[in-house]
């Protein structure tokens, strides 16, 4: 047991020792300790080094508000978490904790030279210094900043832990389980509603854990707390969640709760989640977040051993740890006296209480005197002594000019209290300035939400309990005997005889911002607290200024000569407290990070060793390499085999929409540029869809299955947006049309068969369809059976070869594919992927929407004027096509390119110019949209969008590449193979 531990005192389990290590040294704590309380029990106050000046630092607080005591915890490979607050970190046997931001070790830190030269690190130092020359950024400034300004190191290995997430709902969510939250939960539990009570700590109680001595309803507060916890446990409608931080409050009472499940558990079970994110929707939210004590801003206030008075009080009452053996206190608020008394009553010597105020209530003074405590009013601390732990203070009385040194090994401080408005502010509740106590308080709610207790500025246990009961619809009036919470005075600055340049009074401990930095920012012209914050970095550390924001505001407003509300308050944003990426992702990691859609035939492709590519959120087979083949060789082989005999391709991802109803043709006429009324039943037509702005949106083949039924196909990636586009026009512009849309993308597996032997392959398997060219011509669709299952059989071609697209119900897709593949062996059937599909279509000059078009290409630009009806009165995009800009000369046109050197395959995206020797920036005519090696032609081919391209036929253009290479290419029509389309008619 540590020498600072008080035997039998506190809520820790004195019968259960827990061993852990800090910076490699083993320590003993008790079950229920935090790293900070256990180390303090062993007399260790030095826990870390500060961010900028590398000054030695200890814990200032006792919980999640802690700015200083950041540590790293390691627990095996990959499990390394930096920047954890030692004050909120439960110890377990075998825990490995290290300090951070120090080198080579905590007691001797090289970076501390920053402290010596701190005059060179004023506010805005980084902004001012690391400006030029530009070339210094990579090699000098950035590495320097990274080394010096580090928090803990980021983990370098993948996180082996798993995380969970869920949605949840309740009628009443109570955040914070101090007296206000507990009373609210008890009152809420008595109604027929779902109640959730969350608290970030390991146990319920809030301030009751740290401040003991009160009686509630005739019981000591500890007993009342124990009973209340039991009552809540028994209540069927109450869910209590400890170790759970409400990290963000979003619209309509949507609150994110991050629950820590295993960080305190010594041995991890495989598969168990480390943290869980509850996405909670609450009918009503009761915020009982409490208040955080404010440090005082004085010279040397950051020495290890200087801490908030309430923190010291909690260390003794909750953890049974004396923060020192001979303590002093510096305060401007009455509440600190109770803290000192609690320590004194635990046989800790009190060297002095220094009170910055001139006057002090007589009863408090009397209580101090009865304990023999020396109270010095109207005095300040002008400096502190000690290196890695405070040893002394100098007490200065400004009115008399007297100075006096007092020895101590810990210093309690209290500058008053700051209500926690974090979640209230997330919810966009308004705040108001309370001039009397110099704090911001909740004003108008923006959600069904209320702030109660200390976070509403209502201090004291009785006030909090009654407010809690009332907030939850109860009417209980609690009988409480407690020490008066008292009052305080807020000081922007404390007088000192030492010249300012020789003092260092910290406002933001974590970011090393001093009062001088804030004043400098004001002198340099920053007038809004939001700007002061960004210039000085005050409040921008991982604690988001929980202990520093209001002190900074006070100093800035005084320096500006304005009232605090005119200077503002920085905005609180989620998360309330640092949160792991794991918790934010929850279950959504690895294969669940994003949906990957796979076709029914995908497992077959995988078994054949296909290489896949993502298309939208689909994964598609890209090519099917044989042993030893690279992509080029595989694609060349697939192309040749398809043109020579037979290729098989999985086209299941094509979007499909069934358009049904008596007005189906009318609707199609509106949605597509070309006419549909005269398309016969059983016939297919290629359709081009525009947006209202006249640009190409999607395309696909459409089959008419009945007078009132169209089978529409869309591009793979375009399916969702085309469906939305159609629904939008149908519901909002043409609601009178009697037609309905149903997405059938996944109803059908689509097997595309291309090549001269396509018909021969399917003939034996097809029932009920006459496949002869006379009765089943190109661009026709028939319904029948294939391999014994129903099919919609399309005769279409995206390759220029005789082609069929076999649509079968999806769950039969793999079976039909395998059957056809087996039968196709005699035709050397070759599976091909999206790359070969692209090559074959490019050889025919067919466009890919989104590759050869980019959202600014009209049908005319794409060389497809033929598909725009001149007779239809209306279709989406019609009027825009007549806009002067869209019919102007000199637009970019889609043309073909043939390189001078047939072996050069241009890079897609490469820019095109007329003269490669012109000065930079060159006049760029356009870019290459598609480019491939064509095995059928024995040379490269390309398509490009080129300014005025249709008028440049046979012109020679250049494609300059990095490294000074200029490719020469000739403009041609984008039709490279079988221009007459004779291959479609093979018998």
């Amino acid at each position, binding site marked *: 047991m540590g020498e600072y531990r008080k035997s039998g005192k506190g809520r820790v389990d004195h019968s259960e020792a827990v061993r852990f290590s800090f910076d490699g040294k083993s320590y003993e704590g008790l079950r229920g300790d935090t790293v900070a309380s256990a180390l303090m029990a062993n007399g260790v106050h030095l826990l870390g080094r500060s961010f900028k000046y590398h000054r030695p630092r200890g814990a200032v607080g006792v919980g999640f508000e802690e700015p200083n005591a950041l540590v790293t915890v390691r627990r095996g490979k990959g499990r390394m978490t930096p920047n954890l607050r030692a004050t909120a970190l439960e110890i377990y046997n075998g825990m490995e904790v290290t300090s951070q931001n120090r080198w080579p070790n905590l007691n001797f830190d090289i970076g501390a030279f920053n402290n010596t030269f701190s005059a060179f690190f004023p506010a805005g130092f980084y902004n001012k210094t690391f400006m030029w020359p530009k070339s210094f950024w990579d090699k000098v400034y950035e590495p320097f900043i990274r080394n010096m300004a580090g928090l803990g190191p980021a983990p370098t290995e993948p996180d082996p832990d798993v995380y969970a997430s869920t949605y949840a709902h309740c009628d009443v969510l109570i955040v914070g389980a101090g007296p206000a939250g507990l009373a609210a939960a008890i009152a809420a539990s008595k109604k027929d509603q779902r109640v959730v009570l969350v608290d970030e700590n390991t146990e319920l109680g809030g301030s009751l854990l740290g401040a003991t001595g009160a009686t509630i309803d005739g019981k000591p507060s500890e007993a009342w707390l124990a009973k209340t916890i039991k009552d809540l446990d028994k209540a069927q409608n109450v869910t209590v969640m400890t170790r759970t931080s409400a990290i963000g409050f979003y619209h309509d009472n949507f609150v994110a709760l991050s629950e820590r499940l295993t960080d305190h558990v010594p041995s991890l079970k495989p598969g168990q989640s480390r943290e869980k994110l509850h996405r909670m929707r609450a009918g009503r939210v009761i915020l009982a977040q409490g208040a955080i004590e404010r440090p005082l801003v004085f010279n040397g206030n950051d020495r290890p051993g200087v801490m908030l008075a309430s923190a010291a009080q909690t260390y003794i009452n909750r953890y049974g740890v004396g923060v020192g053996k001979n303590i002093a206190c510096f305060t401007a608020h009455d509440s600190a006296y109770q803290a000192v008394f609690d320590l004194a009553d635990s046989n800790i010597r009190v060297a002095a209480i220094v009170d910055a105020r001139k006057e002090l209530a007589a009863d408090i003074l009397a209580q101090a005197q009865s304990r023999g405590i020396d109270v010095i009013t109207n005095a300040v601390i002008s400096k502190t002594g000690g290196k890695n732990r405070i040893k002394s203070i100098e007490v200065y009385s400004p009115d008399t000019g007297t100075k006096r040194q007092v020895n101590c090994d810990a210093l309690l401080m209290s500058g008053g209290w700051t209500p926690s408005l974090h979640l209230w502010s997330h919810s966009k509740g308004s705040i108001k300035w309370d001039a009397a106590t110099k704090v911001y308080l909740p004003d108008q709610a923006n959600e069904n939400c209320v702030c109660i207790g200390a976070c509403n500025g209502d201090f004291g246990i009785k006030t909090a309990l009654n407010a809690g009961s009332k907030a939850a619809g109860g009417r209980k009036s609690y009988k409480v005997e407690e020490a008066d919470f008292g009052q305080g005075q807020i000081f922007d600055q404390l007088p000192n005889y030492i010249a300012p340049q020789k003092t260092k009074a910290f406002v933001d401990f974590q970011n090393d911002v001093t009062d001088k930095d804030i004043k400098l920012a004001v002198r340099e012209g920053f007038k809004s607290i939001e700007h002061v914050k960004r210039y000085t970095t005050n409040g921008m550390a991982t604690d988001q200024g929980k202990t520093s924001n209001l002190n900074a505001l006070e100093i800035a407003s005084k320096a500006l000569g304005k009232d605090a509300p005119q200077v503002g308050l920085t905005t609180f944003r989620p998360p309330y407290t640092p949160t792991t990426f794991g918790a934010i992702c929850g279950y959504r990691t690895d*294969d669940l990070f994003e949906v990957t859609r796979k076709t*029914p035939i995908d497992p077959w492709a995988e078994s054949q060793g296909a290489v896949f590519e993502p298309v939208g959120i689909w994964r598609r087979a890209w090519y099917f390499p044989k042993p030893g083949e690279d992509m080029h060789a595989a694609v060349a082989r697939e192309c040749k085999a398809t043109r020579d005999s037979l290729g098989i391709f999985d086209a299941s991802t094509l979007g499909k929409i069934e358009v049904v*109803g008596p007005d189906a043709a009318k609707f199609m006429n509106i949605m597509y540029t070309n006419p549909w009324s005269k398309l016969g039943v059983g016939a297919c037509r290629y359709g081009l869809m525009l947006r209202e702005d006249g640009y190409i949106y999607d395309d696909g083949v459409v089959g008419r299955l009945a007078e009132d039924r169209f089978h529409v196909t869309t591009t793979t990636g375009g399916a969702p947006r085309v469906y939305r586009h159609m629904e939008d026009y149908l519901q909002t512009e043409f609601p009178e049309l009697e037609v309905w849309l149903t997405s059938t993308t996944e*109803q059908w597996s689509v097997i595309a068969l291309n090549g001269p032997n396509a018909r021969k392959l399917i003939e034996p398997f097809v029932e009920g369809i006459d496949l002869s060219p006379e009765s089943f011509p190109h661009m026709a669709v028939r319904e029948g059976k294939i391999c014994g299952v129903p099919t919609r059989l399309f005769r279409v071609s995206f390759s220029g070869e005789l082609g069929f697209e076999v649509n079968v119900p999806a*769950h039969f897709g793999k*079976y039909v594919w395998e059957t056809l593949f087996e039968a196709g062996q005699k035709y050397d059937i070759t599976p091909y992927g999206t790359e070969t599909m692209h090559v074959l279509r490019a050889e025919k000059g067919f466009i890919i929407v989104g590759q050869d078009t980019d959202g600014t290409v009209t049908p005319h630009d794409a060389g497809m004027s033929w598909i725009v009806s001149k007779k239809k009165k209306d279709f989406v995009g019609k009027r825009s096509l007549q806009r002067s800009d869209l019919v102007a000369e000199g637009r970019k046109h889609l043309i073909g390119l043939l390189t001078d050197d047939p072996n050069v395959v241009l890079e897609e995206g490469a820019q095109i110019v007329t003269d490669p020797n012109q000065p930079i920036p060159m006049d760029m005519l356009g870019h290459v949209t598609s480019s491939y090696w064509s095995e059928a032609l024995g040379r490269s081919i390309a398509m490009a969008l080129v300014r005025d391209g249709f008028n440049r036929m046979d012109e020679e253009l250049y494609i300059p590449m990095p490294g000074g290479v200029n490719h020469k290419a000739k403009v041609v029509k984008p039709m490279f193979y079988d221009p007459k389309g004779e291959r479609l008619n093979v018998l």
Partner: protein
Amino acid sequence: MSSDMKFDQGLTLPEILSGNDLKIMLLPEKVRYSLRIKPSDIAAVNKASGLKLPRKIGGSNLGKDQFVMCLGPDEWFVVANVDARDRLEKIFAKLEKSFTLSITDVSHRNICFGLMGADAVKAVNIGCPLDLSLEHFPVGKVTRTVFESAPIILTRTGEDNFGIECWRSFAPYIRGFFERYATDKAAA
């Protein structure tokens, strides 16, 4: 070859999903139809078909022959066992003659997970943002909604019985969440 051997939903469920508090199954082959009918025709269609289409969005009718659900103001979804195909298609053919409507076979578009057990609500809620208390989501309620990034149709056929219908390619994604949830539960 039998129909069974041709039929492949492309999905298996791991052993871990058959616990006491939570059992998740894959529904066998079903027929599914999307029905689009003018709301003014519902009464007449019901009379002519005997389908008992519910009028209210979110309503359903689970009969021994089929499960009919109302998903939108003019949209119904019919699910039945495979042997009901001929009977339903006869009814539909009759309706098509007398009414202006749209009937589309989407039997193979979807896969359906059946969830049952005391933890079924929790399992659905890991990815579905709806409040599943009986007050807000009573037995018999159906709706299109989402399960994380996957669009689904959620049905409640009992206090602890749910169905999640999704498009075929989203099923492995949804299964993945159930697996992680069950693994988590087993470890805790």
